[in-house]
């Protein structure tokens, strides 16, 4: 490895509890953030921002949300798409009803509404666990999407049944709507994702995160030491839904521009679930890795044949993609249930000793 913890002594618990206890890691992350905020918007093409970076960040946010629930609190959920829809439709309703409210505040409010919805659908978790809970959350997926489809009030009675992002400004710059540039939308999404990723990390390393993991690992023991499992699970459901709702809002307003309920189908829920399985359950880093992987693989598959001068039919590409995902999920479930994040950790541990692994 290029660096190791040798010589970096921590003299306070504060230093020991830092997110990145090693100074090299801190510099690397700072470097990454600077690249993401300055270099990418200045150099990247419209295509790269719109097709790769923005969806990557938005799905990272959704995976963080689902990971808090599935990976940390151990409650399997298939309702992600439904909660994302709540965030998107609520943002639409709020910003069309009150156009003067700052769009960021609208996003947060929409997130809070989906947190309440998540709380409601989390109630069955008191009694049911595992796959049965997954089926119960499936109900939220179908019910919510059906509701947004049927009740015209949610899309302001327009004839097409789609919600379209109206132009909204932030500090005098248009950030949503058709006139917003990819660069501004990218910066806004990046800022939101950075803030909420930090909040998620703070939550999972604090008391709440430990309660979640305790309930996940052994709920009876958690109860004995004074954690209230039901309350803890409900908090996990609502915070997770907040993140998913926020991601849904960003997806429509800062990425797609307009969407129908189709965009929030069960496929979306499965995609986010795949991301956290491949990325790593119970890891914030894993959420980013998984989202990156799932967003980038189809793009690579699209472009790879051309690099080798081959042409591949679109439907074949699509099928290869599906087969690859299926294979990888089975592979990860068998070989490494903690996903890419764990592989990364193992690689680091191996490299620490390399080239003298004794």
């Amino acid at each position, binding site marked *: 490895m290029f660096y190791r913890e040798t010589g970096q002594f921590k003299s306070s618990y504060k230093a020991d509890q830092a997110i990145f206890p090693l100074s090299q890691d801190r510099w690397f992350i700072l470097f990454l953030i600077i690249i993401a905020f300055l270099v990418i918007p200045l150099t990247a093409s419209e295509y790269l921002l719109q097709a790769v970076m923005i969806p990557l960040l938005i799905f990272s946010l959704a995976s963080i949300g689902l990971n808090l629930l599935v990976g940390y609190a151990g409650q399997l959920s298939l309702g992600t798409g439904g909660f994302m829809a709540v965030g998107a439709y609520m943002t639409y309703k709020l910003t069309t009803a009150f156009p003067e409210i700052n769009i960021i505040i609208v996003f947060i409010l929409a997130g809070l509404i989906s947190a309440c919805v998540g709380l409601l659908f989390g109630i069955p978790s008191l009694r049911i666990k595992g796959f049965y809970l997954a089926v119960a959350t499936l109900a939220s997926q179908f019910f919510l999407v059906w509701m947004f489809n049927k009740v015209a009030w949610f899309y302001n009675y327009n004839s097409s049944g789609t919600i379209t992002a109206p132009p909204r400004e932030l500090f005098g710059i248009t950030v949503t709507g058709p006139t917003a540039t990819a660069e501004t939308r990218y910066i806004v999404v990046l800022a939101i994702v950075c803030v909420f990723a930090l909040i998620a990390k703070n*939550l999972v390393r*604090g008391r709440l995160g*430990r309660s979640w*993991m305790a309930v996940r*690992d052994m709920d009876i023991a*958690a109860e*004995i030491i*004074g*954690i209230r499992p039901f309350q803890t699970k409900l908090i996990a459901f609502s915070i997770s839904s907040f993140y998913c709702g926020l991601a849904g809002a960003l997806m429509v307003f800062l990425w797609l521009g307009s969407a129908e309920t189709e965009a929030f189908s069960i496929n979306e829920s499965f995609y986010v679930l795949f991301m956290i399985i491949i990325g790593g359950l119970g890891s914030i880093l894993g959420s980013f890795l998984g989202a990156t992987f799932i967003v980038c693989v189809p793009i690579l598959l699209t472009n790879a044949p051309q690099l080798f001068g081959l042409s591949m039919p679109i439907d074949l590409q699509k099928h290869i993609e599906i087969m690859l995902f299926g294979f990888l999920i089975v592979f990860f479930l068998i070989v490494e249930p903690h996903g890419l994040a764990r592989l990364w950790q193992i690689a680091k541990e191996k490299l620490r000793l390399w080239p003298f692994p004794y």
Partner: protein
Amino acid sequence: MNETAAPSNEETNKNGSSDLEKNTTFETLLEVHNISLSFGGVHALDEVSFDIRKGEIRAIIGPNGAGKSSMLNVINGFYHPQKGSITYKGNERKKMSPQVAASQGIARTFQNIALFRGMTTLDNIMTGRNLKMKKGIFWQMLHWGPARNEEIHHREIAEHVIDFLEIEPIRKTPVGRLPYGLQKRVELGRALAAQPDLLLLDEPMAGMNVEEKEDMCRFIIDVNEEFGTTIALIEHDMGVVMDLSDRVVVLNYGKKIADGTPDFVRADQGVVDAYLGVSEK
């Protein structure tokens, strides 16, 4: 760990329950009175009464299926007895959830280890501090200012426990990877981190080798002497029980058959019969 360690100045005392022990105050911490517990037709506990004095080590022994673990589950509110009363710190309580018991200072360990396997040793011990942490969710989101100070304060206490149990090298290791003996120790640490008034240990030495048992005995005695924690423990190793405990209560088929000092209990014919069996005549 020899057989003569028990105090011998009250051999003559008939019932063994009013003898002089190292605690002279005799303040009762917990009293269970006529507890009956049954699951369907199975009577797990039948009219059991005993008390636990402040600062003592109280052992609950008995053959398999005697109702020892059920008794602990009743004490920390996991089971609710059909009959009888429990008086803890002078207050009689009817039905109590495990959370309330935990917040009133009852901590326990389990017969089969109930650690949070995916978490590190340190995190496991920190969960023991959960009830004492009060900062709300918004401070936790920031992890800054009061929330961080609180976290560091409780980390210090957790580190004190880690230091006490001599498990410093494994503080960042996920407990799922630890050997059995260390897991037992971490579980004791989690219970200790809550700084309990009453510590319930369900077979703390089950499945350990002699050395690990000796370590565990040392920790139990140290906890009792240094922190003044009252301990109720279930154990099958009679040598350990007789050496460690101040008083012993013996259960058999859900009934109390003896209660008193180790020597008194050892001499009791009913106890001998229960353990060795008695020939039908």
